[in-house]
Structures are given as C-alpha cells and as structure tokens.
C-alpha cells in the first residue's frame, strides 16, 4: 500500500519504519487531564495512535482538541496522566519526545520576511538538521508542497493557501515519525484544502503516525482511519469510522424545529416502535430511527396530538454528525 504514492522516500526506507514501529503506539495518551482554573479543558483522555495511520480527534470548538495536542507536543504540561511519543515521556524526556515529532499548528507559524527556503532551513536546523542533508530535504519538501518555483520569495507575498502549505512543510521538514496537525484547514479555500488533505494522506502512507484534529465532520470521515469524538474535554466515542457508524445502528436522524411540550413528547412517542428520543426542548426535537422517511406521518400525528407545532424537518443519514448529535444532543458546529 505504501509504495503506491511514494515520491521521495525509498521503499526500503519505509519498510524499516513500518517494521520497526509495527504494533507500537507512537503516540500514547493515558488519563490526560488539564485544568485552567475552574475549567477542566481535558478530562481523562486516553487513546493511542499507530504508525501509518491517521488518528482523528473530532469535536466542536472548545472541546479540548488543541489542549490535547498542546500537551502531546510539550507546549503545555499535563495536569495529570501520562503522554508519550515514540516511547518517550513528554514531561520527563521532553527533548527526545519532541525530536521526531512534527507539529503543524492551527495558526500560521512562519517568518513572513523570510523566504520559504529560509523558513524551512531554520525549522530544519531547529530540529538538529544541517549541511547537505538539510539542503536536500528542504528541496524535497518544497517539491512535496508545490512551492519550489517560488521558494526564494518572501512569504509575505504568498497567498493564504501557499502559506498553509508552507506551514505544513515546516512541520515535516525534519522527517518526523509522528505528526500532529491542529485543524490545518481552518480558513483555507476548497482547492488548497484538497491539496492539504492529500499531503496528510501521503504522510500517513509513508508510515508516519498522524494525529489530526478537526471540527469538520467530512474531513474526519474522508481522512481518518481511527477517530475519537471529543466534547467538553472528554472522549465520548472512539473507533474506526465503521465502528462509530455502527453505534448509530444505521439509524437516520430526524430533527424537528417548532414548538413542543417537552413533558408530553416522551409519552406521546412511547407507543411508536423503534424510535429513540435523542433530545427535546421547547423549540426542537431530535429522534433516531430506522427508515425515518416512512415513519414521518405517524410521528407528526402523535406530536400534533400533544399540541406540537412543527415548522421545519431535517432528515439525515447516519454519519458522524448524527452520531455526535445522538451522543451530545448538539450539532458539531454549535
């Protein structure tokens, strides 16, 4: 699988990476907690990420994704729990854990006065690279992100998408074995987003362990091999995409907007078979059921009987969004 889209690393090299780390969790998070004053940003988060796979951390803004990434990268000290990268504890063995870890932050972290090549030279050197090896690698990375022809221009002259690609390049210039990407496509145009996602896939195919955070459900679905859904600092679901879909039991999600009596709705729906009440309040109602389209008339009838006034109906197929709603009662983007 790996050799299909490899441009810049030999198959032998990749085989070594795969062989060496096969079965090893390159990123291991156990019982991670981080608190800011009274706010628990991350609460007992545990997961592992494997080489050659993309592990997604999906959740709304403020769910604790960036805090988790920051603890793994060594930017923040965990309040409790243990985090290790390539077997090195990030607290007690920080420099070793960071040496083979690449980080692509959510914000652009570039020197705009310098050229792309100078930026890459600097960040490569920050990871201990130098001489001909650094020069060769910088050339490779510029090719990978498609900036070779404009490598000598100051970054401030670049478009937003080009800056994003360079931001990504700075994270991989030192050939990391684990890569953290913190919402790298936020604010990126669709074309650049596709390009960035391809770059991420390519890194995973090269045997690198990728940890990817996002609040875009479509990105997570199309990109990630393993997923953890995080909300209010806690992981509420974790598994492969198939496993997560299975949690919905192939149920459609039916969301109604209007005026409801939260006390009367559960009683009214009780006689209907195979309908799960996910959430209800005075203005909205969410139900999970199989073949929802065929049950719409019956649902409307029982709800009308208890005085409900339905103004909007949204029916969605089972996906991560509907799983998130099922688990939290809220939309992912709320």
């Amino acid at each position, binding site marked *: 699988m790996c050799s299909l889209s490899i441009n810049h690393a030999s198959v032998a090299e990749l085989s070594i990476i795969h062989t060496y780390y096969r079965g090893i969790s390159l990123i291991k998070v156990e019982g991670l907690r981080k608190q800011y004053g009274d706010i628990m940003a991350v609460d007992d988060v545990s997961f592992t990420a494997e080489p050659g796979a993309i592990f997604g951390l999906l959740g709304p803004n403020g769910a604790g994704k960036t805090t988790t990434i920051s603890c793994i990268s060594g930017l923040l000290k965990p309040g409790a729990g243990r985090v290790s990268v390539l077997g090195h504890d990030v607290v007690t063995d920080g*420099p070793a854990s960071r040496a083979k870890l690449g980080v692509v932050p959510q914000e652009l972290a570039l020197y705009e*006065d*310098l050229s792309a090549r100078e930026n890459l030279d600097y960040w490569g050197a*920050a990871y201990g690279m130098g001489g001909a090896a650094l020069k060769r690698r910088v050339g490779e990375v510029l090719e990978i992100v498609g900036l070779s022809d404009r490598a000598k221009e100051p970054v401030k002259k670049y478009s937003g998408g080009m800056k994003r690609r360079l931001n990504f390049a700075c994270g991989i210039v030192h050939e990391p074995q684990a890569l953290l990407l913190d919402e790298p496509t936020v604010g990126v145009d669709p074309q650049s987003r596709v390009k960035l996602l391809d770059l991420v896939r390519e890194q995973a195919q090269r045997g690198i362990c990728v940890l990817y955070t996002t609040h875009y459900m479509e990105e997570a679905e199309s990109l990630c091999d393993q997923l953890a859904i995080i909300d209010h600092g806690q992981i509420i679901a974790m598994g492969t995409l198939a496993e997560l879909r299975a949690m919905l039991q192939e149920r459609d999600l039916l969301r109604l907007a209007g005026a409801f009596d939260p006390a009367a709705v559960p009683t009214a729906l009780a006689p209907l078979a195979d309908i799960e009440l996910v959430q209800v309040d005075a203005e909205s109602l969410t139900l999970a059921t199989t073949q929802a389209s065929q049950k719409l008339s019956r649902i409307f009838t029982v709800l009308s009987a208890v005085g409900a006034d339905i103004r909007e109906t949204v029916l969605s197929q089972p996906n991560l969004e509907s799983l998130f709603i099922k688990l939290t009662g809220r939309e992912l983007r709320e």
Partner: protein
Amino acid sequence: MWQTVLKDWRRQRRNPAEFLIWLGIPLLIGGLIILASGGKSGPSPQAHLLVVDEDNSFVSGFLVGAMSQEELGGLIRAEVVDQETGRRTMADGKASALLIIPDGFGDAVLKEESTTLQLLTNPSQIILPGIVEETISVMVDGSFYLQRLLGDELRILANGPPQQMSTFADAFIANMGVKINHIIGRLVDYFDPLVIQLEKVVPEAEQQQEEEGDIPWSVAFVPGILLMSLLFMSQGLGNDLWQERDQHTLRRIVVSPQSVVAFLSGKVVAGTCLMCCVSIVGLTLGYAYFALNPITLPLAIAWTTCSGAMLMALMMLIQLLTTSQRAGNIMTLILIFPLIMLGGSFFPFEAMPNWMAAVGRFTPNGWALLQLSQIIRQDFELSRVAVGFLGLGLVSMVLFVISAWRLRRGFAQG
C-alpha cells in the same frame, strides 16, 4: 543558537526601515544639538557688544580695548559703531548689547565726576547680555578704586599740561611714574599676600571640564546620541519577542527539541552584533568628526556594545513581563524617554540641575554614558573600566536568566 542569529540578521536585513528609525531619530536629534552648539569647532558662546563712543577719549578707548583683552575677549566681541548703526543692529536682534559712552566720559572719570554709561540689552538673549552687564559693572567698580589710589595724579592728567606748555615736562612724567610705582609697591603685598595660601578646590565635574583641554565640548553629545540609539534598538529588539509570539513562531520553537534558552541566546547574540555594528559606525564617525585620538576607539566600541547588550536584556525582560505587545510597547516607551532625558542623552549632566544629574548618573544608560565619556576623553583607569565590564556582564546575566525563566514559564505558551 547560530541559526537563530542568522535568522534574525536576515529578518533585520529585510526590514531596514526599523533599523534606520533606531539610528535616525537619535542622529537627527543629536546632530541638531551639535549644530546648535557650534559643531566640532565648539566656540564658546560670545556676546556681541556694540559700542557707540561719543567721547573718543583715552579713557573711553581704554574701556573698549579692555573689553577685548585676553580672556574677556573670548566672552565679548566689542565693535565700535555709530549710534544709528548700533540701534538699527539692536532692533534687528543681531547683537547682545549696545553700550553708549557719552561725550565727556573720560573727563568725568578722571575728575571723579558723575557720568552715565547707557547699556541697551537684547531681550531675546538671556545669558550673554548678562555677561556684558556684569563686566561693565566690574569695570565701573574698578574705576572707583583707581580714583581712590591715583585720584590726584589722574586729575592733574585730566586738566592737561600747564597753559604755557604743550606737553607735560619730562620731570613731571618721571615724578608721576615714581609715585605710581611707590603706590603699587605698597599695595603689592595686599594684591599678592604670602601669609594666606589659597587652595582652590574644584568639583570633580568642573575639573573634568577643565581637563578636557582642546576637546570641543560638543563631544559630550557623542556618547549620549549613541546610547539613545542603543536604547531605541533595545526597545525594538525586545519587542521582537512579542512578534515571535504573535506570529506563533515562538510556539513552534517550544515544541521543537531546541531549548528556549538557546533561542533567547541567539536573539541576544544577533542583537548584540547589530549593536556592535552601530557602535563601530557611530563611534568611528564621532572620532573622525571631532578628530579624537583613536587609541581608545576599540575600548569605546567594546564598552558601547556591552552596554547595549545590557540595555537589550533589560528591555527584553520588561517585554516578557507584560501581558500584551501593546502593554510591552507602552511600558518600554514610558521607561525609555525618562532614561534618555535623565541619562544624559538630551542634555549633558553638566547642564542639568545637581539633583537631576545625581539621579541620571545612576540610571543604566547614564552610568554607561559616564564611563563612555571618560573612555573617549582618555580619562579613565583600566582597572575601573574592567570592573565596569564585570558589572555589565553580571547585570546582563541576571536579566537574561530571569528572561529565560519567564520565557519558559508562561510567555511562550501564551
């Protein structure tokens, strides 16, 4: 660390405007001050005294001549003019004072009669007309004492030779000379008493001024201008830490294996090298412009560079202790301008009130400026300079350690 040095140099090179501002403002201010004070020739301020001599006597000529003699000549430039020219020049504000010596002045002085000298002063000048007025007052007082001592002889001279003679007889002149000699002989012990020995105690600052010799006094501005530049540079280089944080590159450094201490060291080395360049250029120009002995130039460059590094470490720490870039800018600017004022960059300590100079000498830049001035004037002891370097190193080290601690604990994570 060296990658950070290289990176900061590159960034600085791409942003020359900032560098030019750091140098330009102090050079502009300093240049204007030096030009206003007469440039490298450094002439002492001189009063331009216009004299209208309506008497044209021996005495009035003596008065005008005395004004231009020896040391007084350095203070007052007397020019004899007619009354109309004198008043017109005064009306144009082109002279410090106008002295009108009335007709009969000489006779009046010799006969000890009342007479009036008229002095018009230029209201747009404060000090120079005062010097003229004081000088003339001293001369008037002197004439009173001369009358007491040689009044009879002067009156005989004023009345002129006897009617039947066109000139005084030789015997009379000789007799007069002997009398004057006797009077002076009697008074010489009072003029030059041997019993009391006067010891002149000169304050250190004035002594320093006296020892300057032929070094123009405007040289005093060179260290001030240079330290002003270094203060502005320090402020800008310190502020760069906030830029690194706001553009998120500092976070990237923290998550790399490179230590923030190495990163900070790199920034300090890069900044110190820039300051060294500025010191080399600034001091070399200053030494050349004022034709100073270049033997102390390397030491002056080393001192200026180390002082700049210390100021930069101070500004970095202040920036690191603030909560935003804006707050950092405000804090450092609030600090910089009083430091420039008190630390001798705008006004030399000698021109300040004593209390202000005393405070200014204890500011970091003021202290550095004093040592630099002494180095430039070759008025220093190597041992004291060595102690000074040690002090600079220690202070810089302490500031650096606190900055590195702050960078690791909170600032970088921001």
